[in-house]
């Protein structure tokens, strides 16, 4: 399927990646729950340059409003950029490498990517960066790479938003390297156009004593998937929280893999799903605790709310433990709205649709509350509120 590749300095890398790319099927364990039937005809080649940047109103809607270095990409190409520590990938293409453990769509990204963002913070620096990934294309792709490198003790808050218009194919691969005691708060809002496909993957290498705090809110796209792989050094801390809220015939997956290779690291993970109509949500989460990773503390929870008889969820929380002195737990629940709570609200005069909305909001807000950064949390709440209102 691979369309002609760009004949640039990366061509050998691109060709190798293109040869490696194979469309996954349900026989591949990491993809077994995701409905991929409609994917093949959405694997579009990169969009031509020249699409308009989103309006100021759109840019404001997809910003937390906090002072930050701002970047706007349109169809995977930088349209606006600022910040001393932020650079265009198009000018640093030699940094593009294949990322082996992110699966086939990382290979596809290597084959096609032409631009993206390079964030590089020296030791001890601190920065807040907001990126809007705007898709505006019919039957074309947006291939983006985000590279983040934080020096020892550096701190950054990165808020990424995905939105757009059209039936584009969005593919974003992020490679994150956190130096010792560095700290990254990484918030992702996936609010792609309703006809779009979004396949995103993040690989985070978290060095000794560093902290990686990720939050992913999935609201948009016809078909979407967010993969997150984190490798933790000694005493590193990792939080992966998020939610998928789906309706219509949306299909969304959050898949995570946290690799505890060294002792004394901590992982906490809470992912919630709200699934209405005929939508389908998937959570696949694995935590591996290698034999050297004694004193690991790792907890994972996936909770789902099904709002309609035809909504569906597949959930597979998984612990793989080879060390003997660890504290680990995992769990998953799938349920309906609580009838007793619904009756209580209605018995006070609240009409049923509003009562349901209040309970769904409470369920989802609970996980968004885990976002420590207040402007980012308010920003996600705003979009969560919009999602709840639009369902009435």
């Amino acid at each position: 399927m691979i369309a002609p590749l760009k004949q640039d300095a990366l061509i050998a890398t691109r060709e190798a990646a293109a040869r490696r790319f194979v469309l996954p099927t349900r026989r591949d364990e990491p993809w077994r729950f995701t409905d991929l039937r409609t994917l093949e005809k959405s694997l579009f080649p990169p969009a031509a340059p020249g699409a308009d940047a989103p309006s100021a109103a759109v840019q404001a809607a997809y910003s937390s409003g906090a002072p930050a270095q701002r970047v706007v990409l349109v169809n995977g190409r930088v349209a606006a950029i600022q910040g001393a520590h932020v650079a265009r990938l198009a000018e640093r293409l030699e940094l593009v490498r294949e990322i082996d453990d992110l699966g086939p769509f990382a290979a596809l990204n290597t084959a096609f990517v032409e631009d993206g963002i390079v964030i590089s913070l020296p030791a001890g620096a601190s920065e807040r960066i907001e990126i809007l990934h705007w898709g505006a294309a019919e039957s074309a792709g947006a291939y983006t790479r985000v590279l983040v490198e934080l020096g020892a003790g550096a701190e950054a808050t990165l808020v990424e938003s995905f939105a757009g218009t059209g039936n584009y194919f969005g593919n974003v691969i992020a490679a994150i390297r956190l130096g010792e005691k560095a700290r990254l708060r990484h918030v992702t809002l996936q609010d792609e156009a309703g006809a779009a496909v979004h396949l995103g993957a993040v690989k985070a290498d978290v060095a000794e004593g560093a902290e990686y705090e990720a939050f992913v809110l999935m609201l948009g796209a016809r078909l979407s998937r967010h993969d997150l792989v984190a490798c933790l050094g000694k005493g590193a801390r990792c939080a992966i929280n998020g939610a998928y809220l789906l309706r219509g015939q949306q299909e969304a997956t959050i898949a995570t893999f946290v690799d505890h290779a060294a002792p004394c690291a901590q992982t906490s993970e809470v992912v919630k799903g709200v699934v209405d109509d005929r939508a389908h949500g998937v959570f696949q989460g694995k935590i591996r605790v290698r034999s050297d990773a004694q004193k690991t503390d790792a907890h994972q929870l996936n909770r789902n709310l099904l709002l309609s008889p035809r909504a569906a969820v597949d959930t597979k929380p998984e612990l793989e433990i080879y060390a003997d002195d660890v504290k680990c737990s995992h769990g998953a629940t799938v349920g309906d709205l609580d009838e007793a709570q619904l009756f209580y609200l209605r018995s006070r005069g609240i009409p049923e649709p509003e009562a349901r909305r209040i309970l769904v909001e409470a369920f989802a807000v609970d996980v968004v509350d885990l976002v420590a950064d207040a402007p980012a949390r308010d920003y996600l709440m705003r979009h969560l509120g919009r999602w709840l209102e639009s369902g009435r």
Partner: protein
Amino acid sequence: MLSIKNLRAKVADGGREILKGIDLEVGPGEVHAIMGPNGSGKSTLAGVLAGRAGYEVSGTVTYDGRDLLAMSTDERARAGVFLAFQYPVEIPGVNNMYFLRAALNAVRRSRGESELDAGQFLKLVRQKLKLLEISDDLLQRPVNVGFSGGEKKRNEIFQMAMLEPKLAILDETDSGLDIDALRLVANGINKLRARDRSMVMITHYQRLLDYVEPNRVHVLSGGRIVASGDKSLALELEAKGYAGLEAA
């Protein structure tokens, strides 16, 4: 205000019959106590009047000239029916004030009144708290979450004060309360007695009636009202027990 005729209720899907033909007339401003042993159908009666799902119901219930059984739970509430729950439901993640404002504004909308903004709402909350002599420590917490038994019952009475119903059904509002909490809750109920507000108080014990004096007392047993009288009936019950009454 409330007229119940031959009300029967069965657990849905072929379950047993719990209410076996209840007749009850409650006039405007009257307080009726319904007493009865465990399993007599008291809470089922409260649930059926509030529209709880899970029952097959027959007979007629006329409330304020309307067919109550044809109305949904939330329609009944907006029309002025209030159920104080025996076991108030905990709702994590929903702030008590937010919940109450949503409820009050739903009621006001249906009456054609304007919604209250945050400031107006808070003013009303303060008035009602003062009336009931309760502190505002419950308001910023999630609905009933982590409340003691007494706090939950106080919160029910507070909601009643805010929503100003025309018919309040109090389902064992006295159960699980120590004597101080009982006095507090009973004072609240007394302050909310009004000429245009009827109450049906369901209780096991006579002691609530020491504080809230009913116009009528009914004894429910085996799904039927087996005796009705004035408050002396409650004292008689206290002396003889339900068994003594059924034998009579």
